[in-house]
């Protein structure tokens, strides 16, 4: 009973959030901007939220410091969920090996800053993004011509290939991994060391905000509309003149780039990686994050990523059973809400809503 109630409250919460969004949309521009600024400021202050009376008790993570949960788990998962959402949610391509791109990003930073060169993190990061994007293109070119279901198995294989290759190649540090990876450079009071996790959080959050901004632009562009068309009906999209292969490849490459970005942040934070950091199960968790939140909706993906990362830390009691709980949660969410907690807004409905009154008032006039 309690689960259904909590599910209902979550969905009604999501509904009221979207209603709030609609209300806000009617306000003037300055009101909207200041509201957004306050929200962003509040998110930047997240590491101090556990000090707030009631809310703090809900979100605090017993056993682990809250800021390090934010940086090690939440930021990474949210970023990855955003990237995977482009592939799975927007373009409708099922990627079961997303951890591969994440690993490529992390390993690029590791190799360039510790194993084979001594470049600073800020130089490595863009290279890592480019390399993982390239990996996406290389994987996508032969496979994106395949039907969707084959893509799933091929990407799954790709994730494994990356991990096994890293595990067996001396140049990539074998199974021992790579240590002493460079951290991001300290700026003024923000010291990226081992002790304080907060600077990493601020950095990660800034990166997330930039990614959100870019993705929003992309979603509302010609590219985003093409993705919509491909996801809904690939044949129809092709007939309407959408170059489906090109846009699918774009989705794959952009998704891969964001995955690589997350990997480079992760490598910069933990400073030590080995192949066992990138198991296939992580891919499943990433996908769970996107689908749990609502594939195709950026806010859904963010919420899903944050939930999947934060929940096991909050409920330490079932830390060893968390994967089991996620498995069950996936099935149950699919039974209750196949479209995820915050589903994608359906354009058609909005369009119909705006169209109906006109037909009701004067249908005969136009003829």
């Amino acid at each position, binding site marked *: *009973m*309690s*689960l*259904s109630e909590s599910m209902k409250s979550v969905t009604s919460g999501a509904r009221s959030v979207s209603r709030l969004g609609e209300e806000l949309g009617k306000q003037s521009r300055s009101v909207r901007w200041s509201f957004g600024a306050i929200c962003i400021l509040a998110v930047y202050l997240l590491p101090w939220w556990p000090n707030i009376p009631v809310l703090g008790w809900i979100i605090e993570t017993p056993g682990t410091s809250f800021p390090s949960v934010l940086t090690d788990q939440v930021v990474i998962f949210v970023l990855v969920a955003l990237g995977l959402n482009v592939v*799975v949610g927007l373009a*409708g391509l*099922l990627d079961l090996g997303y951890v591969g791109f994440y690993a490529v990003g992390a390993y690029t930073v590791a190799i360039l800053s510790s194993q084979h060169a001594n470049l600073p993190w800020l130089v490595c990061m863009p290279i890592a993004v480019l390399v993982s994007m390239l990996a996406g293109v290389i994987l996508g070119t*032969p*496979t994106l*011509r*395949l*039907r969707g*279901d*084959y893509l*799933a*198995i*091929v990407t*799954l*294989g*790709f994730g*494994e*290939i990356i991990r*096994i*290759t890293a*595990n*067996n190649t001396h140049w990539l540090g074998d199974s021992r991994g790579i240590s002493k990876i460079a951290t991001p450079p300290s700026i003024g009071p923000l010291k990226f060391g081992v002790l304080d996790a907060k600077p990493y959080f601020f950095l990660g959050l800034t990166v997330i905000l930039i990614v959100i901004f870019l993705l929003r632009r992309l979603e509302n562009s010609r590219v985003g509309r093409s993705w919509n068309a491909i996801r809904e009906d690939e044949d129809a999209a092709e007939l309407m003149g959408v170059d489906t292969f090109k846009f699918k490849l774009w989705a794959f490459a952009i998704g891969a780039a964001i995955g690589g970005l997350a990997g480079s942040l992760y490598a910069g934070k933990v400073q030590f990686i080995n192949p066992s950091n990138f198991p*296939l*199960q992580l891919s*499943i968790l990433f*996908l*769970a994050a996107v*689908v749990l939140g609502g*594939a195709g909706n950026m806010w859904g993906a963010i919420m899903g990523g944050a939930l999947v990362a934060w929940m096991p830390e909050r*409920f330490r*009691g*079932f830390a*060893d*059973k968390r*994967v*089991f*709980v*996620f*498995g*069950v*949660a*996936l*099935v*149950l969410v*699919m*039974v*209750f809400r*196949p*479209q995820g907690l915050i589903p994608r807004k359906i354009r058609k409905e909005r369009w119909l809503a705006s169209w109906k009154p006109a037909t009701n008032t004067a249908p005969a006039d136009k003829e």
Partner: protein
Amino acid sequence: MRDWLIYRTFWDLTVTGVALGSIYALVALGYTLVYGVLRLINFAHSEIFMIGTFASLITATNVLGLPMLEAGKYPYRTGFQLILILVACLVGSMVLSGAGAVALERAAYRPLRGSGDQFGAVVLAFVTAFVVGLIFFNTPKSNLLFGIIGTGPIAWMYLSLFRRGRQAPRLAFLISAIGASTAITEAVAIWGPRDREQYQTPRVLEKKTLFKLFGTDIRIDYVIVIVGALLMMTALLLFVNRTRLGRGVRAVAQDVETAKILGVNVDFVILVTFLLGGVMAGGAAMMFTLVYDQTKFNIGFLLGVKSFTAAVLGGIGNLRGALLGGMVLGLSENYGSALFGGQWKDVIAFVLLLVVLMFRPTGLLGESLAKARV
């Protein structure tokens, strides 16, 4: 140097490759059947295989009371006894795997098709109550109690949800499959007696060499695996192609709506399809334990992925394709690991898949279940 190795051990590799390929092929049949009928990658099928290996283990140790691995000591005196033991293990794993597949269908997929039933509701309700219990209490007994008490009202709630009969999008089925697969694996890992450790299965069979072929010892367990797999596959092909129910399976694979109009009980046919896949996986599981003498909570995962690869290789939805794909995969894995080293075994499988799909995007035999003829 390794080239030389492959020449010397070529026939060895061939025999073990065909045996491994038979197991892949049997599991691949489950993927291919379900895909043909539902267009769904049944991600949890690997767990059905895993359940089968444990069923075989339980039948051997707990039901038949056989001793664990001991060199030179075998539990049978006559050949008849041996056959009885083998058949018992086979039936045990087939029954449990089949039941698992059917339960999976009714609990994790059928509700998404908008035709959930009481059984699914009860299973889902129990799992829900159990997980809620897990969050609040943390002892197995109170969990179980909470789960049983909570099942009633939650099942009622699920039933009312099912009555809405909503059809979920295709991605939802896959996610549900992934979820079920993860949950089953983890449940065995968490609550199994040996947690995440490996389980040894009793050595049922003395692995004698039967005869020599091209200078290679052909061991009895390989013969059992290959012959058994061929027999099971023939039986399945006959069932699908010759019986009334098999015709129903082909009809649903061809066109669900038309089949429904023509009076095929679609939900029942889907259930039968899952049962067939489960039984095949059960057989494969028993043979797997016969050859490798071990099992583990995550044993299904990689084998499942490989078997699905085999199904795709042969052409998904195509029963004979599954056989061919399994053999090709088993052999190339064996030759490949002799050539490049065992640690690259999995990479070889996936690269092979990638290459085949590039040149033949619908697999080697690329036909659907509906068109399959013998």
